[in-house]
């Protein structure tokens, strides 16, 4: 196997599992240490820099970082990364954060950008371009900016004040908003003479279910996302006593929990598939179940049953799942009699689609598979050089953090284009910084010892209380003491083990001390698979790299399996020659705007 090139910025980045998994590459361990130190505003700004909505995301993020967390591999539960982010947001000093917002030039740069849709993708573009002197017009068809964060995510998961504060950090930079306005023609927008147009209109069309009885039952059948937004904007205030929610995703979870708060007595989530295949995040399912919502699996909707012009129930065919050798599922009817469930109302939450009927198909914006725009997946530029996409409108329904990541990249593209640079070739590399953390012979700048500590559960408001009012937040967040204890579980994966072969005298001390047998001095082999099996402990997780260094006197190589390294620093402490050093790696995605948050 070839020696590892640790100068490649992605090598150590990948070792920071959470940061690597985060679409916006938020430097997680860095802000977790700031929280431990009680530096909440600093922790907030580190987040804000990367993900723009720390308060929102600290409550609602899809958390791709958590299943990636190293703690999950060495113990059994990841660090509660998302909940720690909220601690930073809840405890920050608002005045200090305001004071640290980037300055907006009074002398504008003369370029005008239109952003269509006021969701997280567009707002991120605004956040990155305003400090550079752009004039920005933001259009949305809703009465207030925020996109789906406002209209879809229910207030019991995301209090409106938290959202408003973070949306306003951006709007207050001087964004010109045109709300309550549906944009019905891209051509018209382009004709205004904008230097660039960013489309962040999301995936606002909820799927319907065309089965017998649908039309007759229409008064009591609701498209999930439309219904949630009409609740959010207070057009809908109640629902029937018995509610069925169709679908197994997060929208279904929000629909069922919202129904409980609008007066339903019994709410059932009914899914076609087995429960294990439900798309909703495990914690959302848990929260719904805690509130008393059962999940009925293997029920395929067959008919809306209407009596005297009123919906009275639904019929379902019972199925079981079978999987072929490729894991593909088919639902086979069991032949049992159909199930009948009484209901007054039904919410259909079985998916959403993009809806871009307002984009003329003859102005240079090409569309491809599933009617999604054809894009360069790095630059987010469409086939029309001035038109960019991001968020759910770009690649289909996903989540807030992905929309933010797209926004940052699209902002770079727009800026490069306006500067007359090549949008793809001139993109800036990430900035990286690798610094020794040695403070003394055996002292590190960070808390290196690792203990067994179980994940702390976030406290919840009592169910009886929260069900009375849809605006009462369910999760209460960690108090500072619990936050510090949870923060201690972080393994500081950004504290890299950096090896210098010329210094090594091959005493094996590091190999001997390593608690997780991550280091082996051995003969090199051409075949990585064979090498992985020949190490002190088998390196079976091929998603994690081997760090290989040659140049040792005996001709052996040093191989470190990054998989379960605890970043405990014992190898570096045991090394008599400092051939190992613990060095903090800070990887930052370069943004259009200069960075404000790090010292």
């Amino acid at each position, binding site marked *: 196997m070839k020696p590892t090139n640790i100068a490649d910025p992605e090598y150590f980045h990948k070792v920071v599992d959470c940061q690597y998994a985060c679409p916006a590459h938020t430097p997680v361990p860095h802000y977790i240490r700031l929280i431990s130190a009680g530096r909440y505003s600093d922790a907030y700004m580190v987040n804000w820099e990367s993900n723009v909505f720390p308060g929102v995301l600290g409550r609602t993020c899809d958390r791709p970082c958590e299943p990636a967390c190293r703690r999950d*591999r*060495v*113990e059994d539960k990841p660090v509660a990364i998302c909940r720690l982010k909220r601690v930073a947001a809840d405890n920050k000093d608002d005045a200090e954060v305001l004071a640290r917002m980037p300055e907006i030039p009074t002398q504008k740069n003369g370029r005008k950008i239109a952003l269509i849709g006021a969701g997280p993708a567009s707002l991120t573009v605004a956040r990155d371009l305003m400090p550079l002197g752009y004039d920005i017009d933001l259009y949305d068809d809703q009465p207030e900016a925020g996109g789906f964060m406002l209209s879809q995510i229910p207030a019991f998961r995301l209090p409106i004040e938290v959202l408003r504060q973070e949306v306003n950090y951006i709007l207050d930079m001087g964004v010109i908003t045109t709300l309550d306005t549906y944009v019905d023609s891209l051509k018209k927008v382009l004709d205004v003479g904008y230097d660039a147009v960013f489309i962040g209109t999301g995936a606002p069309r909820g799927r319907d279910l065309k089965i017998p009885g649908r039309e007759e039952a229409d008064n009591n059948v609701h498209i999930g996302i439309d219904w949630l937004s009409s609740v959010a904007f207070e057009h809908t205030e109640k629902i029937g006593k018995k509610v069925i929610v169709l679908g197994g995703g997060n929208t279904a979870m929000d629909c069922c929990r919202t129904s409980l708060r609008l007066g339903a007595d019994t709410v059932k989530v009914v899914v076609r598939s087995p429960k294990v295949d439900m798309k909703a995040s495990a914690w959302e399912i848990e929260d719904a179940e805690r509130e008393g919502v059962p999940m009925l699996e293997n029920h395929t909707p067959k008919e809306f049953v209407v009596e005297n012009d009123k919906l009275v129930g639904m019929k379902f065919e019972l199925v079981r799942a079978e999987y072929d050798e490729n894991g593909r599922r088919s639902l086979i009817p069991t032949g049992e009699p159909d199930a009948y469930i009484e209901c007054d109302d039904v919410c259909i939450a079985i998916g959403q689609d993009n809806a871009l009927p307002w984009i003329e198909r003859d102005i240079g914006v090409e569309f491809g598979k599933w009617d999604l725009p054809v894009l360069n997946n790095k630059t987010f530029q469409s086939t029309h050089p001035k038109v960019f996409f991001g968020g759910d409108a770009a690649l289909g329904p996903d989540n807030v953090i992905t929309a933010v990541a797209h926004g940052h990249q699209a902002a770079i593209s727009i800026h490069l284009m306006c500067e007359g640079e090549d949008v793809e070739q001139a993109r800036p590399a990430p900035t990286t910084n690798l610094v020794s953390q040695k403070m003394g*012979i*055996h*002292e590190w700048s960070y808390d*290196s*010892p*690792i*203990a*067994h500590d179980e994940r702390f559960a976030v406290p919840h408001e009592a169910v009886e209380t929260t069900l009375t009012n849809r605006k009462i937040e369910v999760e209460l967040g960690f108090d500072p003491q619990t936050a510090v204890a949870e923060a201690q579980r972080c393994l500081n994966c950004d504290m890299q083990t950096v090896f210098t072969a010329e210094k090594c*005298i*091959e*005493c*094996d*001390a590091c*190999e*001997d*001390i390593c*608690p*997780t*047998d*991550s280091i082996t001095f051995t003969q090199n082999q051409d075949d990585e698979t064979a090498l992985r099996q020949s190490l002190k*402990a*088998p390196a*079976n997780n091929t998603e994690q790299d081997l760090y290989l260094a040659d140049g040792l*006197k*005996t001709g052996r190589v040093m191989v470190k399996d990054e998989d*379960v390294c*605890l970043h*405990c*620093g*014992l190898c570096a*402490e*045991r*090394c*008599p*020659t400092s051939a190992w050093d613990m060095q903090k790696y800070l990887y930052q995605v370069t943004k259009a705007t200069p960075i404000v948050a790090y010292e």
Partner: protein
Amino acid sequence: MTFIKSTFRHPELPTNELGFTRQYYEGVLSTLCAGCGHDSISAAIVMAAFEANIEPHKVAKLSGIGCSSKTPAYFLVNSHGFNTVHGRMPSVATGANMANRDLQYIGISGDGDTASIGMGQFVHATRRNLNILYIVENNGCYGLTKGQDSATADRGSHSKKGAPSPYEGIDLCALALQLGATFVARSFSGDKHQLIPLIKAALKHKGFAFIDVISPCVTFNNNPGSTKGYEHVRDHLAATNTIDFVPERKELTTEYAEGSTQQVTLHDGSVMALHKVDKNYDVSNKSAVSMSLLDYSERGEILTGLLYHDEESQDLHQSLGTTDVPLNTLKESDLCPGGDALNKLNQGLR
């Protein structure tokens, strides 16, 4: 300094036949200097005991005084242990062994502990062929008392702060051989590949199994000019053989080329397959082994591997015809068989 070693271990650590992982054979966190050869030897003992399916509660670790003699704390934390006064480990080991023949004895000593203050003790334990694995962690100096030359320092070798040693260094392997040790080996702390199988074999040997392990003292004796530093040792190693250890009950499956491999059977039926570097070297020929040791040492080379083995070894219990069971299992009726038995005995002596 970190005094905590995480208790997390690799989630896929293998288990041995007893169902234990390596972790069960570890000790407390070492306080020796970073890079000390002694720590590597502890790690090799952990590996060997794990691989040899040793039951830790059936092991007694004994040692004297010195950095080396501290190391029994750093391995087999679930075994018995006795830390004697300086140089007195062999007599305590002898007593323990006589009292309880069912335990497996591991003696850990240093070159100072063995070749200076404990020389008289070492000599007699060896010639009695006490059933013990006796390891000298040989760094050519008194590490614990700040690096004075020990009696194994080679003539002309000098430590970090010292003058060249004016005396001949004692070759403990040559001495052990001459005194009747029945298993004699030398190895290097930086070569676990060789050391681990040697320890496994020595644990199975019945009789005095002596391993002299060159173990650099990084702090006081790892300088250019020292013949016990990492660099010098690596440059002057000469192996007689490398070893495959095949435990009892396992079939010897590999075919070894005639002449270059010598098979050595241990008393429990385990086999050591020695891949010989020098075809003519015969580990059962005592006088030839003696000659080789001299030869290599005159050339300034360090001969390692299994140097000598006596398949006919008779340990001290056999020589003395002691009782077959540990003394603590003897009942009053065994110890005081009564007047009749005494009379019989007296009659026999008349």
